[in-house]
């Protein structure tokens, strides 16, 4: 494969209170894949994303985004945290949340202007939320909130997208809408990394997968490695998943 490497993780170890939650992770994500990270609760899926993004400091190891440290490549990366990680009663509107996606390219002090507003409206339209632009975020349904989060990532116009459980608590329509947008991103040559829970949909949604349970179990194309053997190794119980070839 002569694809470029989008994300490279070397010997990454992360610990909370001296208890390792990620242990010696090596991971290479080629450019242009739509990758699921799967693993049981407490496997360190969110922690892996957060340490790639410098939100959590690892105790060992290194991460590069297109061969450079994350701090130098921030503008290439967009991040959608877990929906539950923010306070949806915060006094702000849908459009305002999307505008936050433009803050990174603005840097400190500079305020968003007409250009950022236009981009944000376009992103809202893309996720079908334009009609709700002035709605207070607590007045949105779970699926609508997730779409606003996705629009905020889209407005960053990044090369790599990290999403932490974007399908959690959303209805089927929103799930399809989101996955279609993710597939569009991949078609445009972007790399998308998604923490995912529903094993049934992995072969349908993704072309690349990483099995994680504190240690990395396997990583590669879904068609090669998404099998009962790896599932059993990751989840510790005998797994039978119908994999469509």
């Amino acid at each position: 494969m002569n694809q470029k490497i989008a994300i490279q993780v070397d010997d990454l170890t992360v610990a909370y209170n001296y208890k390792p939650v990620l242990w010696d992770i090596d991971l290479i994500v080629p450019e242009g894949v739509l990758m699921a990270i799967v693993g049981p609760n407490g496997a360190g899926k969110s922690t892996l994303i957060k340490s790639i993004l410098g939100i959590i400091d690892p105790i060992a190891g290194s991460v590069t985004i297109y061969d450079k440290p994350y701090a130098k490549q921030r503008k290439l990366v967009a991040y959608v945290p877990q929906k539950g990680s923010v306070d949806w009663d915060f006094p702000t509107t849908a459009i305002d949340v999307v505008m936050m996606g433009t803050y990174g390219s603005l840097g400190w002090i500079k305020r968003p202007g007409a250009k950022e507003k236009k981009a944000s409206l376009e992103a809202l339209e893309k996720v079908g939320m334009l009609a709700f632009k002035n709605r207070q975020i607590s007045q949105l349904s779970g699926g609508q909130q997730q779409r606003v989060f996705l629009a905020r990532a889209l407005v960053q116009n990044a090369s790599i997208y990290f999403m932490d459980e974007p399908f959690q608590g959303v209805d089927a329509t929103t799930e399809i809408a989101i996955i279609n947008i993710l597939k569009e991103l991949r078609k445009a040559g972007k790399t998308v990394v998604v923490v995912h829970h529903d094993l049934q949909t992995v072969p349908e949604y993704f072309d690349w997968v990483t099995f994680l349970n504190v240690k990395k179990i396997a990583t590669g194309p879904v068609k090669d490695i998404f099998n009962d053997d790896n599932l059993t190794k990751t989840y510790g119980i005998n797994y039978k998943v119908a994999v469509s070839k």
Partner: protein
Amino acid sequence: MSSPQIEIQIIAAVVAVACAIPGVFLVLRKMALISDAISHSILPGIVLGFFITQDLNSPLLIILAALSGVITVVLVERIQKTGLVKEDTAIGLVFPALFSIGVILIAKNANDVHLDVDAVLLGELAFAPFDRLIMSGVDMGPKSLWIMGVILLITITLLLLFFKELKVSTFDIGLSSALGFSPVVLHYGLMTISSITVVGAFEAVGAILVVALMIAPAATAYLLTSELKRMLFLSIFFGIFSAISGYWLAHWLDASIAGSISTMLGFVFLLVYLFAPSKGLISVMYRQKQQRTEVSLLTFLLHLNNHTEEEERHINHLREHINWQKIRANTVVDLALKNNMISVEKELVSLTEKGKNFTETALDYIITNKDEKIEHLKEDFFLFRG
């Protein structure tokens, strides 16, 4: 009005605004109690500063006191990080310890210094105009007005410069960090400015009431708006309003100014809590009542939709059948009639075209929980506003 009266009101208003701004972010970050901790634990800083400078208005004293405020925050976080106790317990451990060090320091040196615990806790706004800033023989006005004015100016400048950063780090700490706006830097920036504000304000309103000035305006504004900028403006407005009206309340009652200002803050919050348009108690109760009626309406319409037999649709039978009290049944029938959802002919009730459509849309929503379909109904019915 005499000029000291005007000066006191200006000082009170400036203190109120300086407190309201960081207060908004403390409330949104669910850190209201931290302001209480800071306001008490600055005492040792003030006492030490006073020993060194013998001047309650010295900048060194303000810096030392603000430093002990920041140390409080660091200590609380350290204790919390051990995972052995929760944040509220950590706060309860730290600030009394620091405060008592201050109390002991004052007591040990009570004979030498003109500083007592009462003044620190309650402040005395009425005396503020007597301590004046004299520069080369010219009276420049009350010292505390200058101090609070400078603090307010710094606060407003920082707010204008870093509004965007404060907003994103308050709303979404993960994104803020990923975008390169260090939440740690912003957190300690906010804590520092809060500490400085508390130190500046404590002389005027005391360590206890400064908490009210920080938290009450923000909490009140929170009930009224869904936009951060408006929340800031409203907090500032409530702060100024309570400061001025509190002053006149004190004048009228011949009571403590700071106490009266806090009373006004509480009173304003109570009014808003009761009467706020969407989050207020009365509006919430009204909405719940409406929702109950609408659920009844929907039940009634569904019944009509399910039964074509005449006996099931007879107006008297309906009352017995659905087993509602007469008043409730009448309310529901009236509501349905008013909205042209049913028609009554020879005491037989039938669904109109509109009623049928409404029932089906509502059913569809209940089954699929899709929001788009009922967007246009939200204006008329509380039931669908979630």
